[in-house]
């Protein structure tokens, strides 16, 4: 089939995925013990008050009815209303989009900036000292928990040497870039070791492959080989690996947001689970899921388009 048909087909296939996720998150959220009205009213909850609030929130209806109401809202473009402060879930998420977006973006960019040169360095001479070093050091990045890394970065680069703000997000754009650096670095420290491993492996594979050998035999310089073949395949590989790890990336944001006091969608989700704010949990889950599915789709499409070895059937 043609590439375009493939794209169309994959886009359509997103729908059952999102549908499946909506069922899954609805089920899971309702399995969590704890009555939202009870939790919302806190110390002032009495049986009568709880009953009234439950009715108001609509959670006294049978589950199936609630689910269909949820889907109905979705089809009309609405993610529901928060139990906690009656604001629309979509506006709450959109409100936090700058923080989340910049954090995600920053983490990805820094990961690539760190991983790419180091992978090239390592792959250039397999087994050499620099190869060993490049492979050993990121292990520390992978192993140390993000909480610790984040706190250490703040201690060293925010307090001892006040290069960056300790937390928060800032108002103006330059302020925001400044604030997002340490959190992005925290994410990158976790992500780049994973990237480096995959990049290095695929680069070595390319360098050993037939067409590179042929190119070398033809006298094409190593520099050109790197630029044209290795880099191109490295990018394909990066894209695939990042696509696979997007879920980890999104998940690690939860911890990073808390350490750096950034009000992103990760902390929105955690706080909402504690408050049993079902609409927000469902809404944010679907939103995250949508991002992951979209990114995964894009990586697959790029992979299919660029990698000559893959045949689209």
């Amino acid at each position, binding site marked *: 089939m043609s590439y375009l048909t493939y794209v169309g087909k994959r886009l359509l296939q997103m729908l059952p995925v999102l549908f499946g996720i909506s069922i899954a998150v609805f089920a899971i959220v309702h399995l969590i013990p*704890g*009555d939202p009205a009870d939790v919302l009213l806190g*110390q002032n909850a009495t049986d009568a008050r709880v009953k009234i609030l439950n009715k108001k929130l609509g959670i006294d209806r049978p589950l199936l009815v609630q689910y269909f109401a949820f889907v109905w809202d979705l089809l009309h473009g609405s993610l529901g209303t928060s139990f*906690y402060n009656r604001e629309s879930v979509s506006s709450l998420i959109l409100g936090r989009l700058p923080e989340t977006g910049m954090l995600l973006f920053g983490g990805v960019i820094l990961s690539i900036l760190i991983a790419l040169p180091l992978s090239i360095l390592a792959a250039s001479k397999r087994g050499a000292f620099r190869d060993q070093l490049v492979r050993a050091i990121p292990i520390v990045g992978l192993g140390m928990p993000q909480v610790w890394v984040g706190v250490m970065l703040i201690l060293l680069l925010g*307090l001892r040497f006040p290069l960056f*703000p300790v*937390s928060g997000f800032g108002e103006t754009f330059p302020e925001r870039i400044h604030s997002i650096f340490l959190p992005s670095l925290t994410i990158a420290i976790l992500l780049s070791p994973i990237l480096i491993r995959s990049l290095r492996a695929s680069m070595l594979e390319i360098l050993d492959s037939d067409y590179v050998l042929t190119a070398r035999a033809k006298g094409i310089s190593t520099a050109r080989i790197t630029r044209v073949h290795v880099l191109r395949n490295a990018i394909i590989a990066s894209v695939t690996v990042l696509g696979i790890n997007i879920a980890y990336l999104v998940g690690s944001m939860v911890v990073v947001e*808390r350490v750096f006091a950034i009000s992103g969608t990760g*902390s929105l989700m955690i706080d909402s689970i504690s408050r049993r704010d079902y609409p927000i949990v469902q809404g944010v889950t679907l939103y995250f899921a949508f991002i992951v599915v979209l990114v995964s789709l894009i990586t697959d499409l790029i992979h299919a388009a660029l990698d000559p070895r893959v045949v689209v059937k």
Partner: protein
Amino acid sequence: MVSRKKTLGAFFAALTVAATVLVPLSANASPTGDLIFVRSQDFATFDPDLAQNDSLFIQQQVFEGLYRGTKDGKGVEPWLAKSHTTSKDGLTWTFKLRTDVKFSNGSPLTAADVKFSLDRATAGTGWGFINEAIGSVEAPSTDTVVIKTKFQWAPLLADLACFSNSIMPKDFGGKTAAEFFKDPIGTGAFVFDKWTPGTEIKLVANKSYWQPGKPYLNSVTWKYVIDDNTREFMLKGGQADINEEPPATNIKSLQAAPNIKVGIFPAAASNYLAFNHKVPALSDVNVRRAISYAVDRAAINKVVYSGLGTASNSFLPPGVNYYDKNSPGVQFDLKKAAAELAKSKYKKGLKLELLIRGGNKAHEATASILQASLKKIGITMTIKAQEPSVQRVTQKAMEYQMTLTGWTMDIVDPDQLLTFGLTPQGGTSAYFTNYNNEKVNAAVKKGQTSVDPKVRAAAYTFVQKQVADDAFMAFTINPPYLYAWSNKITGFFVNPLYSYKMEDVKKG
């Protein structure tokens, strides 16, 4: 490979350039006149009836009451009320209001506003019970309020100083309650500006505040930052001015910092180990006394509170009127603990479960200490952690065996806690323990309804001794209120009733 070196070189050059450009941007300390709190709880509501510790400090900057607690927390002073007189039978209280007070929208404070607010508070299902004695509130003239009580009620002034009796405009100025609390109007030094849930809430100075020259600050913002270390770093780095309730374990580090002041404020607060008397073993007073003797208060104080608290000897915290410092309570003594357990039918050993809030470091440390101590007298204590909202629900539903809980006094009179925590009237089955001692209930009632300090003292001394002997809960530690602030801040003070007023605070 040349290109490889070039790539690396370019990469590091870019980093250096970025650093040089960005360093000057680091100087973003909070500006003078605008004060920033960092705290671990998010604001919830402006409704005084629903207020908990997460919201009431902020409410108290926007609303005021007829009276307010004194700095030492031992009494009350007239505030929106100028003075009062009581009738001979003690049942009619006449208050004269200040005539120079305006709400933040410019309208003057009148007795009608007071009547509206107090009536609403009394009818409230949250804290209404503390106004139980109030029979009626009348506003015969714009500056006079008359309160008739159903019986002689000594704590009335203390109750009027409670946040739940905050004065709001009559009929919410024509709005519904929900609308009003989204943008409230009060007589306090600050006015609501903006709330971003999950991030921060900001108040700005009330231009028509009745105390001339105050407040000194332009605005106060409370930022919600969960991570303890991040709050500490924000304070040290100048991004925050006051750190609300840093964990006691951070205190030494904060005290060592040259630009930080630490406040260890005496608090009328208690921590308890609660027992569910429905559990067969815990319905036995000897078992409860045994466990109470086995609580290593010194260890808990050292590990959890860095030695800044005091071992508890009474259900009432020190600083509260009629607190009996001579009540011996039950202190750490493993021998006595074993002896008590031997008197019960569990001398061969016992298994109990302690419910705690997951992630709460104080709870976790206390639980570990308890587990180790109880093991020594043959009680195997397992620890079950639930996340805080679930733990509260479980505690209320009394589906736990033992749990950790506490109390912070809001008024200087012991009545609020004793009614809530001990008697059926409090509506909580004695703070969710199922304890019910008729003699204690009677004594609490007696203290409530007398105005003679000697009678009250006798009643409350009896109550404290009896509940300690009954060990209905184990009293653990009385902690201080901990705050840390930048040395640019002056005038910040937290009274034992856990209230601070920002109109006296200066920055810079």
